[in-house]
């Protein structure tokens, strides 16, 4: 999995999942169409027209697939709708200095890479993409590396080997668990 793309700066800390997808959009019974309502209250005016100056609106039109956000991205509610909205919008990776645990898991489960870098590196990346929106960022999952050639920067990121395997080789974690049903049943008998 490799991503080469422009990146959208969102220099706000503690972005909670209520901002990523407000509760009024959680009423569907499927996983489709959440992307159009991503950051709804920040992206749109009260009359429903897009806020032209909001970076997300500008760069989305240029096909940016990476979001760069302030510390503690995805805190709050466990709603996986937040990950469906991010993925549905065309975002394939989010870079931050820390992610909330539940969002991080939801991101992986929807093929979105949550990439944790140090606060210093986040600051550098945020600064360069804010000044020059044409800056390309490259992400290589196999190498666990994010690089910004404009900064001559290469940074390593961590991912559990299991999650990496799932993403690289399309392993379905749910099917993995279903295949374990016999072992799970043995466990149940053991502790009964």
């Amino acid at each position, binding site marked *: 999995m490799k991503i080469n793309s422009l990146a959208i700066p969102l220099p706000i800390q503690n972005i909670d999942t209520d*901002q990523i997808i407000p509760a009024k959009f959680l009423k569907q*019974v499927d996983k489709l169409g959440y992307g159009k309502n991503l950051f709804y209250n920040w992206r749109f005016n009260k009359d429903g027209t897009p806020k032209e100056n909001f970076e997300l609106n500008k760069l989305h039109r240029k096909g940016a697939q990476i979001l760069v956000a302030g510390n*503690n991205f995805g805190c709050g509610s466990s709603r996986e709708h937040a990950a469906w909205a991010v993925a549905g919008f065309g975002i394939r990776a989010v870079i931050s200095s820390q992610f909330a645990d539940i969002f991080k898991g939801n991101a992986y489960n929807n093929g979105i890479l949550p990439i944790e870098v140090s606060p210093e590196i986040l600051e550098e990346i945020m600064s360069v993409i804010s000044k020059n929106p044409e800056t390309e960022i490259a992400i290589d999952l196999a190498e666990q590396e994010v690089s910004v050639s404009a900064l001559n920067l290469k940074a390593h990121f961590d991912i559990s080997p299991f999650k990496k395997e799932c993403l690289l080789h399309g392993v379905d974690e749910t099917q993995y668990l279903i295949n374990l049903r016999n072992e799970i049943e043995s466990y149940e008998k053991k502790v009964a």
Partner: protein
Amino acid sequence: MSQTLFDNIWDQHVVKSISEGLDVVYIDQHFIHEVTSPQAFDGLKKRGVSVFRPEKCLATADHNVPTINQKDPIKDPESATQVASLEKNCKEFGIELYGMGHENQGIVHIIGPDLGITQPGMTIVCGDSHTSTHGAFGTLAFGIGTTQVEQVLASQSLVLNRPKTMKIEVNGTLKPGVTAKDVILYIISKLGTEGATGYFVEYAGEVFRNFSMDERMTVCNMSIEMGARGGMVGIDQTTIDYVTSRTEISNEKIESWLKLNSSEDARFDKQIIFDAKDISPMVTCGTAPDTGINLNAKIGSSKHLSEKALAYMQFDSTELISDQKIDYVFIGSCTNGRIEDLRAVAKMVEGKTKAEHVNVWVVPGSMKVRAQAIEEELDKIFIKSGFEFREPGCSACLAMNDDKIPSGSLCVSTSNRNFEGRQGPGARTILASPLTAAASAITGKVTDPTTMMEPA
């Protein structure tokens, strides 16, 4: 072994270890609600698999349900569809449902404990971040995403990274008027919204030992607001009395529960100690739960208050929080919608009338809590004070139903999140204890409850 309660429960539930720190963990109890489950059931249907252990699942409708005239059909077509989907899925997959109108219906984190389903030593999950509430019983309880809901339905197990452990001690005796809600708002204000990310927290010390189960649940409920994977309290007589008054438990079982507790020399990855006497009634002033301040403090005294939050809240940082005129009071939610919360409110407002300009909603956490409140005639006190006493649900905590705070209005709320727009677009939320909410309802402005309490 010098193990923590967390370690003991985790180790007992490992079905298989995948690699260092990554395990397949068995789940004893799965709670389900209408918002985060339809896509999971859909996934099962697409795979053509059954629910592996339907008897270990329990569903209720809480997030979308109206709190007025629940016996009528839900007017909002989308909410109605979601609740109907839950009914259909539960029927198809053989899962017990306490749906609208059922005597056991209520907020998922209120009914589980109250029905005796939540028991010490269990692993408990729900597609809801406030599942940490159940940790009050010495359980390993945490919120999960919908993909994981599907996984638990399909296998009663999850692939989990073992989190680190943190012990938070609060020693000493709380001052009068300081409640469990104030304690947790204080802790969050000290640690920050990401201060416990990656950790499972155990709350220890005199303060939590002396708390009732309802109070412990309020504390554990908000563990997620500092990023913790979950929060828990050790198992003691208070825990056992609560559970055994609701369901029959053998002595052997009780013995086995007590053995799970953290040993005296248990090692935690992080340990934090607070003194109870430093804690006063707390309210938040920003748009994150870590912006808690004392009621006699200036708004600008919160170290976590951002310019963005200050602008959203339309506050002047040099003003006192207790001067702020309010429009709404919401008493309820999985944080503070239990019977003890309603009793505390009733005691404070009995014989007093709400400020004329304030709307006050009291929303019990479950049908049982509502019935109990009516039996104790708390409803009469509320109504006499000018409060609305409603039917159970999540209500204005996240405003998925009609219970929305209008844009720009200021609400003192006993819920758990003050995020932008949480209680409705443009709504401004101040998180507070039931006592503070009750006092504020009477005066019409943010009010320190100790100013309205009889001297002890």
